[in-house]
């Protein structure tokens, strides 16, 4: 979350402040801002026409479609999961809650290449279900389902990670109020819980989507890497780059970079919204205003 408390950093001597700030800004500019800028610079290096030409490639269009498809399935699936899991965790008491949360967080910590590898071990030719799938003519690895599965895995925790602490902080009083007034589970969820978590949901979906569209390592493992086949946009960029077609690669990259920037902006806006709402509800608990 963004810093909101202002500290009397005036205690630190002026020269210390100058040095620290200069180092920080320089470091961030060098490490973070420069790469962002370079993408657009390289993309437009040969001019606008060359930039646009990259998008007319049929494989590029296929890659974009593939990326949208993978994200379009993975994100809603993980959204439903995230909401379900946070309801179970935040509204009830049971043993092993910490373990469950740790398990949900697992994909976050696992290397993307390994994330793809495990699906090969289940669905690949030498894998558990390999023979069965082949016998029935179903292809998972090197085909769309594999891409979707790998994308779902790596983006698994995003919505849940955001909603669980949010719902825990909000407590269950409003839900109990609704139940005592005669509402059933669904009504309570739709009318009472969902409006309260809507910003958290958006935040989780935003991050989930950014990761889903940008995933590289995991889909690299499960994809055939054949152009026009199951390549997602990041894989297509990789292919273009390896062909030394740098302008086209950076042109494609610029779309994803733009997505990254939009995600960043959205993230910050939503963070502020969420903080505001939590301050509001704190107020409603401690209001001591006379009639």
């Amino acid at each position: 979350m963004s810093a909101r408390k202002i500290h009397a950093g005036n205690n630190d001597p002026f020269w210390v402040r100058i040095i620290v700030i200069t180092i920080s800004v320089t470091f961030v500019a060098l490490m973070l801002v420069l790469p962002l800028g370079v993408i657009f610079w390289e993309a437009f290096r040969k001019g606008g026409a060359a930039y646009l030409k990259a998008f007319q490639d049929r494989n590029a269009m296929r890659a974009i479609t593939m990326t949208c498809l993978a994200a379009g399935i993975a994100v809603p699936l993980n959204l439903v999961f995230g909401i379900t899991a946070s309801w179970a965790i935040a509204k009830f008491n049971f043993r092993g809650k910490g373990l469950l949360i740790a398990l949900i967080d697992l994909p976050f910590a696992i290397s993307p290449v390994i994330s793809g590898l495990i699906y090969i071990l289940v669905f690949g030719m030498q894998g558990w279900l390999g023979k069965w799938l082949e016998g029935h003519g179903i292809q998972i690895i090197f085909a769309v389902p594999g891409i979707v599965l790998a994308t779902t895995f790596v983006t698994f925790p995003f919505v849940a990670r955001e909603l669980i602490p949010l719902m825990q902080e909000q407590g269950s009083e409003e839900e109990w109020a609704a139940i005592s007034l005669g509402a059933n589970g669904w009504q309570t969820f739709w009318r009472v819980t969902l409006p309260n978590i809507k910003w958290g949901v958006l935040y989780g979906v935003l991050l989930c989507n950014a990761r889903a569209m940008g995933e590289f390592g995991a889909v690299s493992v499960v994809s055939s890497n054949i152009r026009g086949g199951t390549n997602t946009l990041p894989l297509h960029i990789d292919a273009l780059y390896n062909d030394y077609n740098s302008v086209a690669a950076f042109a494609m990259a610029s779309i994803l970079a733009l997505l990254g920037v939009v995600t960043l902006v959205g993230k910050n806006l939503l963070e502020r919204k969420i903080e505001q709402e939590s301050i509001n509800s704190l107020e409603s608990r401690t209001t001591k205003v006379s009639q």
Partner: protein
Amino acid sequence: MFNNKRSKAMLPGFRLTMGYTLLYLSLIVLIPLAALFLKAATMDWNDFYDTITSRRVQAAYRLTFGASLIAALINTVFGALVAWSIVRYRFAGRQLLDAIIDLPFAMPTAVSGIALMAIYGPTGLIGKHLVPYGIKTAISPLGIVIALTFIGLPFLVRTLQPALEELDGEAEQAAASLGASRWQTFWRIMVPSLLPSLLTGFTLAFARALGEYGSVIFVAGNIPMKTEIASLLIISKLDDSDVPGAAAIAVVMLSATFLILLAVQGIHWWSQRMTGRA
């Protein structure tokens, strides 16, 4: 509705949500992960041992662990400075700086990878100026470290920020009123309370760096024995249709990751004991 058999008063929907959660978790995460460990467990021990101790694999492990460690250390130092500036100082552009920190999170790794190459490659913006001095910032371990520093920075800054915000200045003022110098106050009062977050941020950045793929492989050059990271080695094995070999390498990496995660939990537990606070 869930009326009749229920004898315990609870909000509705526990069985439904818990059931779906466990089912989805098992299908997507637990079972595939189990496949990995089972594969490794059923491998011939000799094959397994030979694979992970082969020179190429050992080189990849050393490189991956080493570069990740260095990158995490760099990030600890600079990340602390950045977090300090954002939380404790006011200056123009502070909020912008704060917002940009998450860029590596939001950016696809492949995009970061080619961008880094465009900067640090031999013909890159910065790289080309350093080549005459014999400094190779790409196709070298140095390039890998740079890439891992890029993706690890947010972990340090975001973990430190809440801890820094919690330092409410009162302890510092108390120390000053008792005659402590700024430096003494810093080392004796502030660093100990920031230590758990520093450690946590460091371990998170380290764990993330171990598994990083997309941002690294463009700058790395991927020369076996020299600049080949473990993740890439796994893919090479898969390309050679050596699935068991890939699994063996992966299991070791995954075990390291789990150990690191346990270490983070341990740090939390230790710091809670020290401060008696949640």
